[in-house]
């Protein structure tokens, strides 16, 4: 046993909802990562006690792949239509960023680019890396992988930025024939992508990072 004992080694289990540490949970202490063990309710808050989030790998993979599939139309399809007297202009996420940059707000262009492109891509790559390495039980860069997961959790919801921008402009720019903004299907796909990536990172259990063969400490 290492200097830092883990709950499973001591026959303890922590409630993920209220944090209460419970002992003597029956069941196989072997951690196979699919999170299925004997269900027991937390004596304090009544939530089901589980050593690991249930079916963490399967759920995270499924949500991540679904999010990635929706991310394609979110980028290819226009998210917003700007119509005025003399022209109709359909904007995609990227063209919106370019427009901000050209119209003299490179700082905001960088923020929108980060929220709409960098953050979702980072989430796909980061969660994909975490899934593959944890499933292999890899001991590689565990501390960094743990930090990567916390980063993904922290920044994930900021991707909603572009959705709010489109919604606000739609409500504001309604000058009948002179000028109108309409949402286009891309924004729906993008909103769903953000929700799915958030669900994916929530269903990943960071404890799995540390469950492989102990080679580090």
């Amino acid at each position, binding site marked *: 046993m290492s200097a*830092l*004992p*883990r*709950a*499973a080694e*001591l026959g*303890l289990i*922590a409630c993920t909802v*209220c*944090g*209460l*540490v*419970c*002992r003597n949970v029956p069941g196989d202490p072997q951690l196979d990562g699919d999170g299925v063990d004997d269900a027991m309710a937390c004596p*304090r*808050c*009544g939530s089901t006690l589980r*050593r690991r989030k249930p079916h963490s790998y399967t759920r995270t993979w499924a949500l991540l792949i679904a999010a990635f599939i929706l991310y394609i139309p979110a980028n290819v399809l226009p998210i917003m239509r700007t119509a*005025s007297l003399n022209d109709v202009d359909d904007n995609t996420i990227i063209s919106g960023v370019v427009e*901000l940059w050209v119209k003299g*707000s490179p700082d*905001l262009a960088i*923020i929108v680019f980060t929220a709409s492109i960098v953050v979702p891509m980072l989430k796909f790559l980061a969660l994909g890396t975490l899934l593959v390495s944890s499933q292999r039980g890899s001991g590689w860069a565990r*501390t960094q992988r*743990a*930090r990567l*997961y*916390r980063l993904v*959790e922290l920044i*994930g*919801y*900021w991707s*909603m*930025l*572009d*959705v*709010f*921008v489109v*919604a*606000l*402009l*739609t*409500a*504001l*720019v*309604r*000058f009948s024939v*002179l*000028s109108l903004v309409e*949402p286009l299907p891309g*924004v*729906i796909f993008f*909103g769903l992508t953000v*929700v799915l990536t958030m669900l994916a990172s*929530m269903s990943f259990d*960071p*404890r799995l*990072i*540390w469950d492989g063969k102990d080679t580090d*400490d």
Partner: protein
Amino acid sequence: MGTSSPETLLVCEHCDTVYRRRPLARGEVATCARCGAELERHHALSVNAMLALILTAMIVFVQANMWPIVTLGLSGQQSSTTLWGVILAMWREEAKVVSVLVAATLFFFPLMKMLLLGWLLWFGKAGRRAPGFVPLMVALHRLGPWTMSEVFVLGALVAIVKAHTYFDVTPDPGIYAYAALTLLITIFAGVDLRQLWDQVPERAA
């Protein structure tokens, strides 16, 4: 190991490492030695202070939702909107999914969070468990990251800059209320709500 009762133990949520709990000094944050995640932090805010913050946040929330956020002007015409104007506009424009997302993350979830916290803290102030304490604490936990007022403030800023090229933009009181709300949210986002489980003993239910 057999002597310690479970309440004195703390388990890192991110890697399952077990620690013995110890009192934290003011401003101190306990981090996990294995994975570096935050385990627990000292709470400078008393229940009373948190209750005051929540009440302030509720008042600001009402203002942020009632007052228009921004007004656009184009050749003499004016157009302004509130948050509910945004939600209804998206619903009408056949982007119902987005409308529901906006309503949930910017209106219903933040409102629920504040009401739940206010209710639990109001009773907690008297050292009692509020009626429905257990299910409400669980509900509060589940709301987790689904409130996005701070993202909306940044979104409003981006929208204003985008609109600025074509329209006269006048910021309305709603945007300031939102900015204030974001500050308040940031203050109590750092508060670990789990302390309520320990602070309000069960026998007083």
